[in-house]
């Protein structure tokens, strides 16, 4: 069975640009979460979506937005990129919120 997939693997952007990251959950999983991980730290929660509805949001500015599609895949959008947005962005899926989450390989975003 395919695990969580994310695209792209790596991305380089400049300040002020916007970026869209994509995630496909494990088949049958309806919950998708997004995390930001900066170097040397643990992942920080950004969003969780379940059945296309936002169920939770972390302490991130409104420049960060996300959505979930009918097939449960998800997109994370970040506008007006800042240097500090450089990080590994991880997507995780679970059968339902509150159960074990399974992570994708991540998208490495570098903002120059």
């Amino acid at each position, binding site marked *: 069975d395919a695990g969580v997939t994310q695209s792209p693997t790596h991305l380089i952007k400049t300040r002020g640009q916007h970026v869209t990251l994509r995630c496909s959950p494990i088949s049958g999983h309806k919950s998708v979460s997004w995390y930001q991980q900066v170097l040397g730290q643990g992942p920080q929660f950004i969003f969780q979506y379940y059945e296309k509805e936002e169920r939770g949001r972390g302490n991130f500015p409104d420049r960060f937005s996300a959505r979930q599609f009918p097939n449960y895949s998800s997109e994370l959008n970040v506008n007006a990129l800042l240097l500090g947005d450089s990080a*590994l962005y991880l997507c995780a899926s679970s059968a339902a919120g*509150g159960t074990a*989450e399974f992570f994708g390989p991540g998208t490495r975003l570098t903002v120059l």
Partner: protein
Amino acid sequence: SQQGEEDPQALSIQEGENATMNCSYKTSINNLQWYRQNSGRGLVHLILIRSNEREKHSGRLRVTLDTSKKSSSLLITASRAADTASYFCATPETGGFKTIFGAGTRLFVKA
């Protein structure tokens, strides 16, 4: 706020030795999870232990949970060079949906 904190921050051992990592958290939990991360890539789910469990095994991994001390430990027996990675404990947010991670323990296993 609820948070898992791992100890030590870094651990260096020889192949064949055992590695023990500890995690402390602040509030009541329903479960606690351990993850491994290789070279800044995706996290691999290792084990989930529920609040009514005290010990759980998976291959060379042994996890304990002490809810009275709000702590957990991950033991890797007979370590291998391939075990070199960062290890994170994670707890679900009380009354919420997000998973909260600590800063992790960086394990180096020397061949």
